């Protein structure tokens, strides 16, 4: 163990340089020494207005915005919790586990509803549904499915149209995909039947919502299941070829969460950033001006996945192993 550690320490500079990001943006403020490092799974384009608003209020702070997948966030942050100030992710379960394991700083006196925070350290700031997104061309002359059941029917009725043209998250790689899949499976058996059908028709697996939506637009795939609704809706506004369907049988609603690292280098600024974030997202006035949907205030978040320690259930090694095994056998089927 000690040798491995020494090895890691020796190779660390190399690793650090070698680390790759999906995106890395630096928003230069007045003081480069006060740089907030934000680790996030949210595409920069969605976050830019929020960061701009924060910098307008506190121009002396610089922000380094690092984008990577949800599962990667968990791994990289656990390796070096002192290198990041704020962690923002859509994988609620991974975020909650980080908070549960003591990586998050408790922020006192943040006015936020109980259901949208955990231990005053993990704060939810969006409500985003998992959506079925379809290419309109594939349903030309046919009604759009409104539920998972109707989607299964549609797939069974016209298997030739959809064969090899289905897409969903690869839950083995994507934290958010795994969260959606496990919550679906928890809610209804319909999920497994849909996976069986999708598996039998051949399904492409994706790491991220963005790529799925790209492939939908150009018709590579006709149906994508469990796409991040916020991203799809944003695309729908500029792209008439796709349609976003929020299944009416049971909604799967995710809340994007953020926390301040307990070992943050700039805890005050990080706290200020979280306050800015949830203040902005809870303000109904900013609903239309922001690219990310605000926290839904209806029925006290009952429709959303609850921020509670039960989220750790599917992160358990044995549970995950069992789930992945079943999922693979359903969807890969080779």
């Amino acid at each position, binding site marked *: 163990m000690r040798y491995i550690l020494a090895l890691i320490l020796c190779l660390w500079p190399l690793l650090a340089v070698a680390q790759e990001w999906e995106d890395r943006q630096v928003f230069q403020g007045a003081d480069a020494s006060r740089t907030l490092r934000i680790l996030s799974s949210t595409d920069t384009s969605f976050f830019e207005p929020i960061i701009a608003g924060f910098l307008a209020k506190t121009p002396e702070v610089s922000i380094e915005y690092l984008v990577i997948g949800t599962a990667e966030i968990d791994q990289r942050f656990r390796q070096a919790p002192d290198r990041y100030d704020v962690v923002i992710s859509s994988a609620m379960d991974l975020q909650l586990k980080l908070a*549960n*394991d*003591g990586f998050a700083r408790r922020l006192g006196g943040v006015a936020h509803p*109980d259901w949208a*925070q*955990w*231990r*005053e350290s993990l704060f939810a700031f969006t409500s985003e549904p998992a959506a079925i997104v379809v290419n309109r061309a594939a349903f030309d002359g046919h009604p759009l499915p409104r539920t998972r059941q109707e989607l299964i029917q549609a797939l069974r009725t016209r298997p030739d149209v959809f064969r090899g043209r289905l897409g969903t998250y690869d839950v083995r790689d994507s934290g958010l995909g795994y969260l959606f899949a496990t919550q679906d499976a*928890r809610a209804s058996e319909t999920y497994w039947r849909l996976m069986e059908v999708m598996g039998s028709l051949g399904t492409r697996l994706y790491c991220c919502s963005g790529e799925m939506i790209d492939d939908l637009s150009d018709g590579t795939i006709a149906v994508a299941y469990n796409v991040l609704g916020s991203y799809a809706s944003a695309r729908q506004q500029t792209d008439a070829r796709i349609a976003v369907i929020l299944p009416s049988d049971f909604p799967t609603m995710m809340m994007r969460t953020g926390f301040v690292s307990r070992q943050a280098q700039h805890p005050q600024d990080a706290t200020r950033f979280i306050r800015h974030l949830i203040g902005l997202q809870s303000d109904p006035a900013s609903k239309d001006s922001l690219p990310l949907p605000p926290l839904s205030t209806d029925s006290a978040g009952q429709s959303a996945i*609850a921020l*509670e*320690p*039960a*989220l*750790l*259930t599917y992160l*358990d*090694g*044995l*549970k995950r192993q*069992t789930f992945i095994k079943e999922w693979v056998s359903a969807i890969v089927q080779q």
Partner: protein
Amino acid sequence: MTEGVQVSGSLRNRLAVTLTGGAAVLAVLLFIVVRSYAAQIAQQGQDSILSASVTSILDAAVIRDGVVEIDFPYASFSMLSTPMDDRIFYAIYQDDTLLSGYGDLPRTAGTATRAYQGSAVRLATASRVLIGANVRTRISVTVAQTQDALSGTLSRISRNVALFGAGFFALATLLSIWATAATIEPLQRLTTSVTRRGPQDLSPVAKPVPLEMLPLVASLNSLMARLDQSLRQSEDFIAEAAHRVRTPLATVRSYAEATLQRVDREENRQALRSMIRAIDESSRAAGQLLDHAMITFRADHLERDDLDLVDLLRELVLRLTPVAEMKDIELHLRADGPVIINGDPILLQNALRNLIDNALKYAPGESVIGIRIITEPRFQVEIRDQGPGFPADEIANLTERFSRGRNAVGTIGSGLGLTIAQDVAAAHGGSLALSNLPEGGACVTFSL
């Protein structure tokens, strides 16, 4: 009254301190007991949820193809949600190999509290033996939870119980103040009733008293009864003695007077005259002793009657005029119209006669004794003479029994006259005042 009595503590304070001290001890005890009991119950609540979580995980354990699978339900952890968002930790072991969860979580038997990741956590552990084909293995599950909600609940309970205890204490203090006052009250009432008594009042306490005070009051009553009896006995004795002495003295005097008529030798006559004067003095003293005894007796049972003070004085003056004329003294009574007062006529007569007698004794020959009735603001009889007056330094003590002024040497008297007058005045609720007139002479004011 209270000087000379040694004070040892205070019943009221002792009672109040005991009651409030007891209430304080009870309040603290209440707080400790309720709090520890609440802590125990709250802890039991957490323990039972932890145990339920452990059981639900254990129940999900199965052996499939020789491999342990534990597909535990979502509820296993969701039941551990608390309002304070407590952190949870768990560890699943197969025999002594970690299957999943937190490997560094302490393993305990049953439930226990340990420190983990910088905070106190409550752990529950249980195990189960799985038997499959050719496999026999023990699965042991530990679930732990921080105690934020528990301590929140406890501090809330503590606050409420503390408030409750303080309220209890305040109420008990008020009660003890009231109880103390109520307990002491009969004692104060007794004290007041004894203090207010007149100097002659030796009657038993008649008002009802609490049971606990009965022995004290009973002994007080019996003491007073004995005192009263012994006083009465001595008065009786004196009266009896005076009476017994007076009668033979009168006989002796008449013999002495008869003998004086028959004796011619001057020295014998002189001796007889001295004898007669001594007999007069003794008989007068005996008379006054009798009067005093009578007054002491009657003062307790005044026989009040409406009477005319002017009438009474006029009669007295009339009766004493022969004596006065023997010394060429004029008794001058100034009074117009009847002055009706309410009092014991015999006592009043006695007292006033003693006062006028006194004036006659000390007044020089060929002088005037003025007697005046004043009606405003109260009834007063003023008697002035033109004698030597009272010795200024003795004026305060002259009304004591058998006390005579320095200038009384050579005057017949027992020293009881002023005492009698004073006692009568006191029995009627009045007083006797002695003074000297600036132009010479004594002035006695008898007030009713």
